[in-house]
């Protein structure tokens, strides 16, 4: 598995993938920065009771849509590397397990998304301090606001990996990704069992961890299905 991952790591060079990984967090935090800069005198008294908490929530609201669309693009780029010049047949005629090749695609996408989630934390901190909030932020809340949605969004990472790897025409997974992003914007009106709402960590029990568990569990199941299909598939 490590061999496959290290090969994947090499392949994503010079694809602009790292730029994309930066872009999402930069956009989400940057737009909030703009919001605060323009309405500074109005917002600061309004959020006086919990300035850090409000900032974190505001960033999260912009972060989630960019995660939905970002993970779809990342998954598609990672699979597209093989589709583009018919490299599947070369890779899969090498002494590697198909399962490992498939999982590596998922792991690389997950890893890149994890980097984005971490960058969100870093950028939020910078913005907070720039706005003159107190030096010690609520660390636990900050970490949860970033990494809980990351785990709760796993069904979509798995789904987009499946579609991108199994379907040659990348317009299909990208369309699904865009539709998902649109749905996610209205997620707060959806019932608990709909996966789009999970990254918002909202559920009727008021327990964010339930959303996280649902996400991780469902993600694993979806991934397993994709893996089984990939294992049996004839390679073009």
């Amino acid at each position: 598995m490590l061999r496959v991952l290290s090969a994947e790591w090499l392949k994503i060079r010079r694809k602009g993938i790292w730029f994309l990984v930066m872009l999402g967090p930069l956009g989400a935090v940057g737009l909030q920065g703009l919001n605060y800069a323009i309405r500074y005198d109005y917002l600061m008294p309004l959020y006086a009771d919990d300035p850090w908490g409000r900032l974190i929530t505001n960033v999260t609201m912009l972060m989630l849509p960019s995660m939905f669309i970002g993970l779809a693009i990342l998954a598609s780029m990672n699979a597209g590397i093989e589709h583009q010049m018919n490299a599947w047949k070369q890779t899969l005629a090498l002494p590697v397990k198909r399962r490992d090749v498939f999982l590596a695609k998922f792991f690389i996408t997950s890893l890149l998304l994890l980097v984005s989630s971490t960058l969100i934390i870093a950028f939020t901190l910078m913005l907070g301090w720039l706005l003159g909030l107190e030096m010690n932020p609520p660390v636990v809340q900050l970490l949860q606001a970033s990494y809980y949605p990351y785990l709760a969004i796993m069904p979509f990472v798995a789904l987009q990996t499946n579609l991108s790897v199994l379907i040659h025409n990348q317009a299909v997974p990208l369309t699904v990704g865009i539709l998902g992003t649109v749905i996610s914007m209205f997620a707060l009106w959806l019932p608990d069992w709909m996966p789009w709402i999970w990254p918002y960590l909202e559920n009727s029990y008021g327990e964010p961890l339930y959303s996280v568990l649902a996400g991780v569990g469902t993600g694993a199941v979806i991934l397993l299905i994709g893996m089984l299909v990939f294992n049996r598939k004839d390679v073009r």
Partner: protein
Amino acid sequence: MNSPWMIETKQLTKMLGGKPVVDRVDMLIQKGEIYGFLGPNGAGKTTTIRMLLGLARPSSGHIRLLGKDIRRERLDILRKVGSLVEYPSYYGHLSGYENLEAVRRLLDIPKSRIDEVLAIVRLTKDAKRPVKGYSLGMKQRLGIATALLGSPELLILDEPTNGLDPAGILEIRELIKSLPRSQGVTILISSHLLSEVDQMATRVGIISSGRMIFQDSIARLRKQAKSGIRMRVSEPEQAMRLLHGHGFQAAVESELLAFDDLPDAQIGAMVARLSEHGHLIYRIEESAASLERIFLDMTGTEGSL
């Protein structure tokens, strides 16, 4: 394990879209052979090769490579097999060197091997450039380098000269011939042109509409190439009629008198008849029916070249 066959298929069949694209093929390839796998477009060569490499599942039948069952010991087998299937596979945004490095990481072999294969296919100079800027011939050579990377015992090359110009074809052919035969590498090379494998192959298998219609040594195939006699004379049509009148079989093909192979005595008699009647005989030549001709006759396709 001690099977003499590097490739052995039994009744290998693949159904696609409801019809057999590969139909009960028994392929046998011995260690150290260069096996020419021939057939016109759409005959099922690529489909067969995909199954050999475990890329596609047979609908029925069995495959053994290096004496092992591909379904049970796929990874063990593939470690010793290098392949190039249909058009080249590559990562355009990476350099030639990085392309090989990506494969090397999967094979887990020393880095020095990359420089070795680059030298073999003479890409050392261009190794640092992105592959998307390579010519088709260079991409094809990179594909061969990739196939050679793991020092395979069995090399499977599907139309390695596809889409190349004559110079490129010659180059690849020379390259394949120069591969270390001493190490006993077995090579399966597919093509729709007999002439392409004619000079390298020791054995050939000919597939047509999914059926293996010939599998034997290239010498056997040559034996089927019946030779004939051609004669250039002053008035071919009249000469033909004259010979028919004397009970000889003759035809006119592109201004030449053409006969099946005949014993010397009969040729002598014909020449005497023609001279008697004032025909001028400019030259008499023996013509071997080209292998290409036999190939076309066997596969029953005209102009698939």
